[in-house]
């Protein structure tokens, strides 16, 4: 909408101040709505993937040194563009270049692994170095774009780490994801400018419940006991902070828990091998569904009352 050069002339003429110029550019930059921004981001992502695949498909014709030079030219170029746009007050463009830089770093790690024939746990190395090297970008970013990529990368890396180093245990996943969720929650509450907090809170919560579902369905008495405690404890915390959406989510998981307990006990006492047992099972299932719906409605009522 507004040209930088025209605004420069207005600043020189003393019609607007340099601060106002920045504000106008920032306003101009942020306009366009969610769909346009999402499409823009998708475009950048596609270009990044395109560059990576172009280099990958032609890599045998390019010498190793040239590959590394091109790689660093792309890295410095993306970082330079982010800084240049930021200094011009075009924050939105700068944020997109940060995403490009994030993707280029991942591609660059892959390239170094191939050129130097690195062996061992390559995927672990790639993910670990990727999130560690791009961590500073989270502090530079003012929008969530980089965090949308960085946080899932970090959560997946942790899952890989836990599997690779034989420290696998779903309890550990639950503890780590719960801690990350709490960290994200604290950041979004007390440091709202640090946008990674909100993304971390949402993604860690998703990862936590994903693991919890698997944990509940493990059909094991210890898992059922621990998951019941988790659901009770978290429900109490959510209720205290009036996070009714999460309480309703816990009610659904309580339904899953009862279902899992029922399958577990049914298998133990042979409930599914007799006609009467099957009838009781059917009645219990219907009661379970009705119970979850009713409970959710009660919470909704309380939510409206407190609103």
């Amino acid at each position, binding site marked *: 909408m507004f040209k930088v050069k025209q605004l420069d002339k207005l600043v020189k003429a003393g019609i607007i101040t340099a601060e106002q110029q920045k504000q106008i550019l920032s306003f101009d930059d942020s306009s366009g709505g969610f769909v346009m921004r999402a499409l823009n981001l998708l475009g950048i992502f596609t270009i990044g993937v395109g560059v990576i695949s172009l280099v990958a498909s032609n*890599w*045998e014709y390019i010498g190793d040194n040239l590959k*590394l030079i091109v790689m*660093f030219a792309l*890295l*410095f170029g993306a*970082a330079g563009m*982010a*800084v240049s746009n*930021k*200094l011009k007050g075009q924050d939105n463009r700068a944020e997109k270049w*940060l995403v490009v*830089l*994030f993707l280029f*770093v991942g591609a*660059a*790690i892959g390239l*170094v*692994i*191939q050129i*130097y*024939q*690195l*062996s*061992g746990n*390559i995927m672990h190395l790639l993910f670990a*170095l990727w999130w*560690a*090297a*791009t961590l*500073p*970008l989270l*502090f*530079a970013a003012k929008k969530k774009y980089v965090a949308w990529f960085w946080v899932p990368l970090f959560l997946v890396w942790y899952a890989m780490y836990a599997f690779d180093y034989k420290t696998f245990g779903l309890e550990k996943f639950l503890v780590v994801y719960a801690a990350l969720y709490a960290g994200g929650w604290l950041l979004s509450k007390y440091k709202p400018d640090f946008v990674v907090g909100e993304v971390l809170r949402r993604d860690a919560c998703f990862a936590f419940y994903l693991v919890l579902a698997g944990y509940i369905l493990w059909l094991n008495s210890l898992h059922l006991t621990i998951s019941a405690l988790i659901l009770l404890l978290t429900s109490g915390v959510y209720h205290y902070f009036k996070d009714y959406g999460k309480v309703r989510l816990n009610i659904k998981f309580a339904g899953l828990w009862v279902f899992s307990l029922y399958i577990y006990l049914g298998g133990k006492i042979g409930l599914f091998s007799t006609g009467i047992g099957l009838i009781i099972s059917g009645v219990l299932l219907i009661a379970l569904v009705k119970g979850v719906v009713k409970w959710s409605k009660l919470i909704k009522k309380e939510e409206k009352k407190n609103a």
Partner: protein
Amino acid sequence: MLKKYGYVGLVFLPVMIMLVWMTEIAHQRNQGREVVVRLRGYDPWDLLSGHYISYWLDWDNTDCTQFEGGLCPKLAFGGAGRFYVPENKAQALDKAVRDTNNTAEIVFSYKEGFKPYALRLLVNGESWERAVDKN
């Protein structure tokens, strides 16, 4: 001003980390001396995976006198590894390496106490590219 430099520092830090990491690898590779280790036990389901081949090191047929004390440092090398090749040449290399009449070896850069780095893959003593082109 400090804010501006802080932003520049944060944005360029990932690039610097990459530069330091790559330089460190290149430096370590140059520090070691070349040793040749035979390959064996190719897993038919895993050997060829797109643009790399997976290998197992054959210590029984490797000349251990090239290492200090005449002992092969099996632990330092690990049992298995990957060697990256262009995708369109991978199949031909796979065939050449599988051929029991051929001898496949990897030249590593090795220094005691450091991670070994694969430098070249040899088939019958010559570079794998030449061996593949011959077939």
